[in-house]
């Protein structure tokens, strides 16, 4: 099948009104907020060198924070703030999605606007300022009738830069729950759907270019004092915003939102859950690509209704437990703990997605390594690779302590590339995931953890507090419980990592239901 006729293009196109609309809305809101804050600040600080220096310094520092980190920071910040306002004023707001994205992006837009406004205002000919005073203008009249109009072309250039930055960076707001063109990119990267990645990148680039050109038209119109060009540019921007608002108005609001974290298995499972809800006549949609720490809070605060997590993850991350309990005991205690927060643990899906030390089967057999304990004597000459969080997780500390394990070198890798790296011998061992389909594909073997250093990671279905009494929801999802074994999940994950039309999360979820559902 050629790239041009790939049906995933039309699937991607189907998401466009939603993703593009959200992208434009969050970008416009962020830019508007950024302008509303930076313009007055720049004007106030134009004759105050100390304030000006401080502002520009601060904005520059913000600029050096990577976009993803800045967005991620705002989520816990707003969460704390929401808790505070709820406690003090009884007013609560959602710290999920739109708000943190807008705030972080607005902060990001400030530097070019501040810098260009200050430059533009200080570039006004002193002779002209004198004339403004001489003809009898008040300082405010001088600002609005002379200084701002003269600085406008330079300010507009700054606004253009800010707009392009915001539109580009908005693709990173997907993990904090804001739908954007980044949804294509995050989903595509995780499920190796390069059509989606390409589509997302092109869409974001085209949007940035169009907005940049429209703003350039306005800038040009202002510079050459051509009302026509200014008006045309303004009209174009207005039309763009209006076009993205239309689908938002007509959009049917799905009642149930299924969350998913940022990896392929989660995309498949969220699609499966949503399909089961729809099959039961419950309107449902997915909100995929959510950060691991964001998703639990989103469930607790009701921004999503249901998602699949893993017992060991919650144990360590949410409840900060470092002790390791047998599987059933851990599940039981987790259920009680979750219930205290009004979160229902509906049940287990039937498989575990645990961390495991993995190496090529052939090499393991040659060296006579079957368990982690067998690895101990060899480890000092070996290298290990793990995902971005593994080496800072309690599991790794537990494994090192329990077995006295120490490697020559450790590397962090994108999870999708780890398996190929260990298969090719680039690293000796990886900390993989037991349910990963690539284990079978590359003929790898999971080393046994006979001292139980790694906690159990049962896949469990969690329900939001507001769905506590929702029997229809529970009935629709119960048929999945206990049905998905590790072999089925591995195969589903392997399918999802394929790079063709049958590997979309929806298609794999349907295949999985065919396999386990009856």
């Amino acid at each position, binding site marked *: 099948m050629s790239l041009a006729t790939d049906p995933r293009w039309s699937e991607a196109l189907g998401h466009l009104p939603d993703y593009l609309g959200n992208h434009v809305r969050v970008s416009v809101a962020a830019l508007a907020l950024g302008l509303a804050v930076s313009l007055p600040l720049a004007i106030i600080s134009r004759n105050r060198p100390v304030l000006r220096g401080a502002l520009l310094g601060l904005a520059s520092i913000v600029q050096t924070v990577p976009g993803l980190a800045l967005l991620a920071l705002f989520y816990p910040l707003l969460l704390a703030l929401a808790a505070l306002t709820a406690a003090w004023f009884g007013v609560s707001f959602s710290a999920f999605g739109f708000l943190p994205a807008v705030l972080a992006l607005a902060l990001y837009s400030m530097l070019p606007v501040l810098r260009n406004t200050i430059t533009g205002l200080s570039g006004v000919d002193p002779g*002209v300022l004198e004339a403004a005073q*001489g003809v009898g203008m008040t300082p405010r009249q001088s600002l609005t009738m002379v200084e701002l109009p003269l600085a406008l072309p330079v300010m507009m250039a700054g606004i253009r830069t800010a707009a392009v930055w915001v539109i580009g960076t908005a693709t990173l707001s997907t993990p904090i729950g804001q739908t954007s063109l980044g949804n294509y990119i995050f989903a595509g990267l995780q499920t190796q759907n390069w059509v989606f990645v390409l589509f997302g990148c092109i869409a974001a680039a085209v949007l940035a270019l169009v907005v940049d050109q429209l703003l350039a038209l306005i800038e040009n119109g202002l510079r050459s004092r051509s009302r026509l060009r200014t008006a045309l540019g303004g009209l174009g921007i207005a039309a763009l915003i209006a076009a993205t608002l239309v689908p938002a108005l007509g959009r049917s609001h799905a009642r149930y939102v299924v969350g998913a974290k940022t990896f392929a298995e989660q995309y498949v499972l969220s699609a499966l859950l949503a399909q089961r809800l729809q099959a039961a006549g419950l309107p449902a949609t997915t909100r995929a690509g959510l950060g691991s720490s964001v998703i639990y809070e989103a469930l607790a605060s009701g921004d999503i209704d249901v998602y699949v997590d893993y017992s060991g993850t919650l144990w360590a991350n949410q409840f900060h437990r470092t002790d390791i309990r047998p599987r059933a005991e851990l599940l039981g205690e987790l259920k009680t703990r979750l219930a205290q927060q009004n979160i229902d643990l509906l049940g287990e899906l039937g498989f575990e997605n645990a961390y495991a030390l993995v190496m090529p089967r052939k090499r393991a057999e040659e060296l006579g390594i079957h368990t982690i304990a067998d690895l101990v004597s060899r480890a000092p000459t070996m290298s290990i690779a793990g995902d971005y969080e593994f080496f800072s997780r309690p599991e790794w500390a537990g494994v090192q302590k329990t077995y006295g394990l120490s490697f020559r070198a450790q590397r962090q890798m994108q999870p999708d590339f780890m398996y190929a790296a260990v298969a090719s011998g680039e690293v000796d061992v990886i900390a993989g995931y037991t349910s990963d389909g690539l284990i079978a594909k590359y003929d790898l073997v999971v080393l046994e953890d006979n001292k139980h250093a790694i906690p159990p990671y049962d896949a469990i279905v969690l329900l939001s507090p507001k769905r506590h009494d929702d029997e229809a929801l529970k009935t629709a999802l119960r048929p999945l419980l206990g049905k998905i074994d590790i072999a089925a999940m591995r195969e589903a994950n392997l399918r999802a990592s394929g790079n063709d039309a049958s590997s979309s999360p929806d298609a794999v979820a349907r295949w999985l239901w065919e396999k386990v559902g009856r």
Partner: protein
Amino acid sequence: MSITPLIAYAHVGKSFDGGRVVAVDDVSLAVAEGEFLAIVGGSGSGKTTLLRLANRLIEADRGRIAIEGEDVSRLDPILLRRRIGYVFQSGGLFPHLSVAGNIGITPRLLGWQQAEIAARVDELLDLVRLDRALYRDRLPHELSGGQRQRVGVARALAAKPRIVLMDEPFGALDPLTRDALGDDYRTLHRELGLTTIMITHDMTEALLLADRVAVMRTGRLLALGTPAELSASTDDYVGELLRTPRRQAERLGALLPRDSAA
């Protein structure tokens, strides 16, 4: 010669940099209604500072300045500036406003009606001898230096002031344009009954245009009088300033004998 001075400086002083630089030092000066006074001096003589004290673009440290009999320190500086015309060195036009927009600015600040402003703009374009239809909508960068300065003069006159202050208005122009503009302004001054103070570093220009000439040096008023009174001055600096116009007049008189003109 003046019974009711329209502009009066009394023992006015102004210094900058915490008193280190004395720009204007104990100057007293009265300008009668209808009078055209030129202030001549080199750069740093304090002549521009003295001019700006009158409409409070700069605030005086000492002394008293009265405009139409009122102490300026008791007036709102914004309203004061709107009733005094001011012509800037190289026009000082607002580059983003059309000729009409520039001329009509003070009336606009004073809240005149649109139609009233438009009519006044056309009237002023006629007065400064610029074609209404041709120049009304042009931007300053589309004008020659002389045309810009004509617009500058029209702007100063827009709100019908009794007083006009001019800061080296013709300094940056070529000699021909400068001469024509000077003559035209002199006519306007007389016909409109204006009271004018003009700053210049060019003694010839001062002598040709003004009723009286004030000479300033290092912040002090050295001499004040009609051209004839000045020529009787014993001050060395005043003599030095008068030497150039005198020599020019003699040489031109010799080079261009009156009866040889065609």
